[in-house]
């Protein structure tokens, strides 16, 4: 007697992505939001009718480059499984730790809003709208922004999880494994967004201006977002959701919520609410890209290359603020 084996496709990370209903729902919402932004009256929000075409041409370029970058990322990571409940680091109590992290993010958001400090100092995608925000900044406000985010979203969560809960750097995804593979990837994927967004002034900005931009964005944005959302929150969400893709979608929504006080959002009328929700989805999309990068590779640093280096194109604005042009 012979038996015929039923061929069921082996699960792969790519198949995980495109069979996850929450991801498909999110992408459908993102696509609808994109159409809405392009077709509605954007003047109801401050700044958002400045250069949406610039933003979406960036998105188009970003998608083309991003898909290529993600394809290479999936290829390079093909020998390891994405992080989820089966192979994530052992978390002592992922439910309580996730709840604590989300509550902490809520507290940081609330306190920051009192002092008009938000996660992004300006949304570079909305240049020159971003410039209008930068024109209101002073060295003091910029340093306050950087230090507030660094302390509340990087230093304190790291110290708590490292020394109070006893998690090692490896279980916080902070080991930069396979550097011969991932360092070249980091450079090759991280640099194009800067030059794609850079204005002519970028190339005439002083070296000191560029160095200060790198330092301030590292402490004010890259490290805070990395520690709280990528090292700590995202892997726990994947464990709780029992799916790395669903965990990525949840992480995207949490990232969007953390950024809800963006300068160009307003919620005072139905029209503002609808358009702000559409922009919220755009912001969350970047959170999704961050989480997919982190969970696919098990490396919390790499999201800086795939989604964050674009801020370094803000060097002219920052240099002007600090009179370093």
């Amino acid at each position: 007697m012979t038996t015929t084996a039923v061929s069921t496709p082996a699960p792969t990370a790519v198949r995980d992505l495109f069979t996850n209903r929450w991801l498909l729902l999110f992408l459908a919402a993102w696509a609808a939001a994109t159409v809405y932004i392009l077709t509605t009256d954007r003047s109801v929000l401050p700044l958002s009718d400045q250069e949406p075409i610039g933003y979406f041409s960036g998105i188009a370029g970003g998608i083309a480059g991003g898909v290529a970058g993600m394809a290479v990322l999936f290829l390079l990571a093909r020998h390891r499984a994405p992080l989820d409940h089966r192979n994530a680091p052992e978390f002592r109590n992922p439910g309580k730790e996730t709840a604590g992290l989300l509550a902490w993010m809520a507290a940081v958001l609330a306190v920051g809003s009192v002092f008009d400090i938000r996660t992004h100092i300006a949304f570079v995608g909305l240049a020159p709208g971003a410039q209008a925000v930068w024109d209101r900044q002073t060295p003091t406000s910029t340093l306050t922004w950087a230090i507030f985010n660094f302390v509340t979203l990087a230093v304190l969560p790291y110290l708590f999880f490292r020394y109070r809960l006893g998690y090692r750097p490896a279980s916080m995804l902070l080991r930069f494994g396979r550097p011969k593979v991932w360092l070249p990837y980091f450079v090759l994927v991280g640099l194009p967004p800067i030059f794609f967004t850079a204005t002519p002034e970028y190339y005439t900005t002083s070296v000191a201006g560029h160095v200060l931009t790198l330092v301030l964005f590292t402490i004010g944005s890259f490290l805070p977002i990395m520690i709280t959302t990528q090292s700590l929150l995202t892997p726990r969400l994947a464990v709780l959701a029992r799916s790395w893709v669903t965990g990525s979608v949840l992480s995207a929504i949490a990232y969007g919520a953390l950024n809800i006080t963006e300068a160009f959002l307003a919620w005072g009328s139905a029209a503002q609410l609808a358009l702000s929700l559409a922009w919220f989805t755009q912001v969350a999309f970047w959170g999704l890209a961050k989480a997919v990068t982190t969970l696919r590779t098990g490396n919390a640093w790499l999201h800086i290359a795939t989604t964050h280096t674009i801020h370094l194109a803000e060097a002219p604005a920052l240099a002007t603020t600090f009179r370093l042009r």
Partner: protein
Amino acid sequence: MTATLLAHAGHVATHGGTEALTGVALLLVGAAAALWRAHRDR
């Protein structure tokens, strides 16, 4: 150019607090859901 932008932009970053409260509520709902999920899986 800056003056034009600012005039066009109307207000910049004047938040009444509603949006922060919405974000706080979203995050706290997520926190409650995480606790519920962990409790259910126990």
